[in-house]
């Protein structure tokens, strides 16, 4: 078959460029400018998929975003993407699409048996059928539902396409380039406002591309083209096609999805496939148009049944006939245009109009063209399985609930029109409460919530004259508001045909003797019966009915089903539609690829990476890295086939025996400056700071106001009014915010400033009994003796030409120093230290060894200071001043914090002195006790003690003070381990702290 349904010389496609594509394995051709849908229809293909629940054959129902059925799996450039809307994707060479939700093929689908079993799949079938017995869920029901509900297959391959994000600011964003959008963008742009005009489709013009109108003696399309080219000339306007504004968020932030590369046969390496725009605008004009509403009838889901507007669009824009024997089933005038278009292309349609015989411009036109019209008629049921073959039609009774007579009419498509539904999604997302417009039987935006105006068909304005007027007025109003400028624009002359009122007829009654399903929601297979059942079972709120039946919950967001569902509920409940209310519209308006949402934040760009100046040295020396926030830190330096434990043990032992060097650049550093700095520190830390002399460091603990330890670290008095504070790597940012909070809000009278200097200094810890020897050679001009540079001393020196800060502080519990130089000299410092330390047996050590050293010393860190411990819990009692007040002090007098059996840090060793205790293990008295086994506490940190050559852990347990010497079980259900442990002191090595002072 080769495009047998293509009309000669019609449409805006490029017939000079033939495009080859595949559908379900067969080769077809289409033209440049086609969508996948129009190209398939040109080849006479209607059957594109199977329905979600019953696997019924489904065909194209629309020509745009309103399409509920044609969701295909699309392969292009080696990628496979599920749920692609065939009516929205442009045809490109080599594209290959397959139907979803069918097995083994769309023509013969085993799952269609569900259709015969339909009485087992009524509304709420998930809730009822699959609830019992519970044991069936994982093995039977869930796999069954998953297989049956296979809406496409997500790719497991890495997405190699490029996606981008863009931030844009403008005065006015106009969403939709139909007549209303063009007019308002034009009017505002003329005044000089910065305007963005966004059009979802490839072609601008919206309804102007389809409707038989003229503006200033130009066809709708020519006028649209003229305005667009004028707008494109203006430097203050951005005109975007293939761009869907899908979300309206707070404070006029809208998000738009641009298909930048999908339509390109070849694109450069740096052309993104899709782009996400965050647009912050002063004003928004919503000109999103309207969507045709279907009329529900029997088997209305048969392929060949489609919206009348869709059929017209396929003819006018793509030059494609959707059938050669069409029935036009309508309750209003607009479908007459479709009938006339058919007639103009040599096809004889039959119009069934539910209204009484009447006349209007369009009706008379149709009559004059010899089109057959049956008033007072409806389609009761479509016949044909994979394609419509005929329809049972009926003459309606006076009250339209029964038929006077019925007959069968041959046809190959049924074009249905139930009037128009304004697209109010974005207005609703903005917070605009919708109101029901009785004139058009649909919801329209009410009072603006944000700076937004809705114009044109989206506002229920269905004549071109009114729409253009509203558009120009809205544009002028906005520009007046923005620039206080009046724009003088001649509103063009419009020729259009007047329409008669529509009929309130949206669901064809089904006589008792005719059996057929009548679908309200195609994508989720929700029928009239399902809604009736939900109401019968007592569901009243429309939100509940929606969830119980899944009406409007598919990816098409019920664009063609919501109003008919509401109408049905209101008919059954004898209420008017606005009393039933409507469900909530939420972004995104159309599905957005995950790739677009993620943008460039993939792989190593997922989050920023912070590297120390010594990073490349670590790489060269076989460091295995660990993430510490955004930082990369060496975890250990691997030699040969060492395991992590072996390496960490070697490194830690080398510190205990000789000397080690550790990159501590990542520690948070904050400069605290000002005459009141000491007073400020005194309030921030739990211990006393008023008497710290210049050239001395002090360990400090800071609390939150609730008494929990927030962070710890050393702070050094560099000069009279200058302190250098260090924080843990993890808490650096929080501590700075915390300090700023107190300085700016609580104690603004203190003359102190704080600033982060983390990035400014590179740091290296030099630890071990030989560290002083290394230091002496590093700084030959400084007296580094214990007397001259004692524990907690500070001195400045010259490191081979580089100014350095030397702190005698220790985290490892050994004699140790930390040396800081300007970041740029970090690697220089490190290499000098390695070079000079060589003769003393220096080795680098990573975070594993660092942890081992601090754990066996009983020094607390992040796992103990987890926001749930007060100083008393972690043996920091000595750090808490009794004399002065400080942040969080009042909380420490809470009764619970002072109970005799309060939790406390302890040490643990396994009774067998061999088995390592997993971190996170729970401590219990009896490992075999009945569940829930009372928990005494948990293991916070574990290591292999290099000093004692056996496992050692820190734990926080209830009544820890009195538990020393007792035996407990450390139970880890995760690792399926339970280990008998002995409770000992948390200071496993060097109880008296002699080494740091040696």
């Amino acid at each position, binding site marked *: 078959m080769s495009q047998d349904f293509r009309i000669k010389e019609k449409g805006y496609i490029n017939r000079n460029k033939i495009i080859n594509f595949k559908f379900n394995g067969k080769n077809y051709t289409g033209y440049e400018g086609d969508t996948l849908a129009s190209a398939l229809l040109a080849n006479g293909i209607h059957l594109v998929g199977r329905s979600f629940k019953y696997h019924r054959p489904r065909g194209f129902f629309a020509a745009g975003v309103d399409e509920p059925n044609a969701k295909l799996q699309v392969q292009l450039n080696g990628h496979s993407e599920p749920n692609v809307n065939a009516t929205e994707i442009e045809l490109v060479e080599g594209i290959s699409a397959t139907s979803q939700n069918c097995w083994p093929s769309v023509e013969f689908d085993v799952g269609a048996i569900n259709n015969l079993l339909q009485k087992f799949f009524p509304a709420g079938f998930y809730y009822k059928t699959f609830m019992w017995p519970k044991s069936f869920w994982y093995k039977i029901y869930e796999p069954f539902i998953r297989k049956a509900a296979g809406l496409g297959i997500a790719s497991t391959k890495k997405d190699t396409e490029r996606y981008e994000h863009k931030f844009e600011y403008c005065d006015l964003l106009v969403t939709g380039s139909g007549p209303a959008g063009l007019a308002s963008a034009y009017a505002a742009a003329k005044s000089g406002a910065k305007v963005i005009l966004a059009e979802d489709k490839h072609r601008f013009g919206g309804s102007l591309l389809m409707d038989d109108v003229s503006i200033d003696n130009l066809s709708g399309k020519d006028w649209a083209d003229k305005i667009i080219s004028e707008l494109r000339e203006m430097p203050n306007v951005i005109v975007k096609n293939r761009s869907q504004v899908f979300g309206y*968020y*707070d*404070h*006029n*932030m809208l998000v738009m999805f641009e298909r930048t590369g999908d339509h390109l046969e070849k694109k450069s390496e740096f052309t993104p496939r899709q782009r996400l725009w*965050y647009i*912050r605008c002063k004003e928004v004009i919503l000109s999103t148009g309207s969507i045709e509403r279907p009329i529900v009838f029997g088997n209305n889901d048969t392929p060949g049944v489609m919206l009348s507007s869709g059929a017209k669009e396929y003819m006018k824009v793509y030059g494609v006939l959707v059938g050669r024997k069409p029935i036009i089933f309508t309750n209003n005038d607009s479908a007459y245009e479709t009938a006339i278009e058919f007639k103009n292309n040599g096809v004889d349609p039959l119009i069934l109009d539910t209204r009484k015989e009447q006349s209007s411009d369009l009706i008379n036109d149709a009559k004059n063209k010899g089109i057959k019209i049956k008033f007072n008629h409806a389609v009761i049921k479509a016949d044909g399985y994979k394609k419509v073959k005929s329809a049972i039609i009926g003459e309606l009774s006076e009250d339209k609930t029964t038929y006077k007579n019925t007959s069968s009419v041959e046809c190959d498509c049924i074009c249905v029109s139930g009037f128009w539904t304004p697209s109010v999604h974005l207005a609703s997302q903005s*917070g605009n409460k919708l109101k029901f417009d009785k004139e058009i039987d649909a919801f329209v935006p009410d009072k603006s*919530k944000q700076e937004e105006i809705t114009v044109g068909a989206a506002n229920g304005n269905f004549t071109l004259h009114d729409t253009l007027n509203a558009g120009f007025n809205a544009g002028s109003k906005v520009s007046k508001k923005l620039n206080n400028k009046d724009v003088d624009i001649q509103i063009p002359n419009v020729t259009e045909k007047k329409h008669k009122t529509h009929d309130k007829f949206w669901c064809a009654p089904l006589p008792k003797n005719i059996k057929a399903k009548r679908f309200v929601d195609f994508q989720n297979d929700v029928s009239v019966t399902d809604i009736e059942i939900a109401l019968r079972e007592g569901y009243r709120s429309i939100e509940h009915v929606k969830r119980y039946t899944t009406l409007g919950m598919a990816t098409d967001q019920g664009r063609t089903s919501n109003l008919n569902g509401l109408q049905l509920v209101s008919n059954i409940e004898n209420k008017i539609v606005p009393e039933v209310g409507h469900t909530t519209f939420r972004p995104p308006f159309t599905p957005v690829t995950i790739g677009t949402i993620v943008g460039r934040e993939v792989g190593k760009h997922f989050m920023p990476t912070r590297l120390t100046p010594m990073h490349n040295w670590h790489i060269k020396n076989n460091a295995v890295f660990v993430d510490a926030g955004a930082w990369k830190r060496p975890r250990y330096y691997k030699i040969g086939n060492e395991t992590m434990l072996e390496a960490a043990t070697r490194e830690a032992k080398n510190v205990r025996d000789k000397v080690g060097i550790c990159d501590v650049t990542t520690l948070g550093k904050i400069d605290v400056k000002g005459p009141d700095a000491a007073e400020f520190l005194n*309030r921030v830390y739990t211990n006393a700071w008023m008497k710290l002399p210049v050239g001395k460091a002090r360990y400090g603990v800071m609390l939150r*106001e*609730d008494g929990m330890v927030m962070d710890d670290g050393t702070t050094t008095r560099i000069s009279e009014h200058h302190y250098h504070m260090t924080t843990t790597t993890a808490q650096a940012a929080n501590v*700075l*915010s915390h300090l*700023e*909070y107190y300085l*700016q*809000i*609580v104690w*603004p009278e203190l003359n102190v400033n704080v600033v982060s200097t983390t990035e400014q200094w590179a740091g290296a810890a030099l630890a071990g009994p030989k560290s002083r020897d290394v230091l002496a050679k590093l700084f030959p001009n400084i007296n580094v003796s214990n007397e001259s540079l004692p524990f907690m001393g500070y001195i400045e020196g010259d490191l081979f030409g580089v100014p350095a800060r030397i702190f005698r502080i220790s985290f490892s519990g050994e004699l140790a120093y930390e040396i800081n130089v300007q970041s740029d000299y970090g690697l220089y410092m490190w290499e000098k230290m390695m070079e000079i330390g060589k003769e003393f047996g220096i080795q680098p050590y990573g975070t594993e060894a660092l942890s081992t050293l601090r754990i066996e010393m009983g020094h607390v860190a992040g796992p103990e200071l987890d926001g749930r411990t007060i100083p008393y819990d972690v043996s920091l009692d000595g750090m808490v001043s009794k004399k*002065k*007040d400080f942040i969080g002090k*009042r*909380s420490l007098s*809470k009764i619970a914090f002072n109970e005799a059996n309060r939790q406390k840090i302890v040490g643990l060793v396994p009774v067998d002195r061999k088995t390592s205790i997993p971190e996170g293990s729970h401590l219990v008295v009896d490992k075999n006790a009945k569940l829930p086994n009372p928990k005494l506490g948990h293991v916070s940190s574990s290591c292999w003690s290099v000093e004692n050559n056996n496992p050692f852990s820190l734990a926080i347990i209830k009544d820890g003070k009195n538990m020393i010497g007792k035996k407990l079980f450390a139970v880890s259900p995760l690792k399926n381990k339970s280990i008998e442990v002995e409770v000992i002191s948390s200071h496993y090595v060097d109880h008296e702290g002699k080494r740091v002072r040696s």
Partner: protein
Amino acid sequence: MLYIKCPFCGMRSQNEFAYGGDASVKRPELNKDVSDKEWDDFVYNRKSLRGKHIELWHHVSGCRQWFKAQRDTATHEIFKTAMMNEEI
């Protein structure tokens, strides 16, 4: 995403800021005897108002200043922002 006027930097997107809670909370003075109730009200008890709320924001990815904002907690409308030493 909210659009917030930092009193020092001007209009910026919400992702540059951190929220700081109720601005009317006053920390009890240092070295003052504080009852349990008074202290708990300061540390824990918040009203979680619906409607106009004066709250703290911190321009973390900007000038690093804390400031006050009057916001409607239901609609997110921000009526006013002010420096800490200004009345709102």
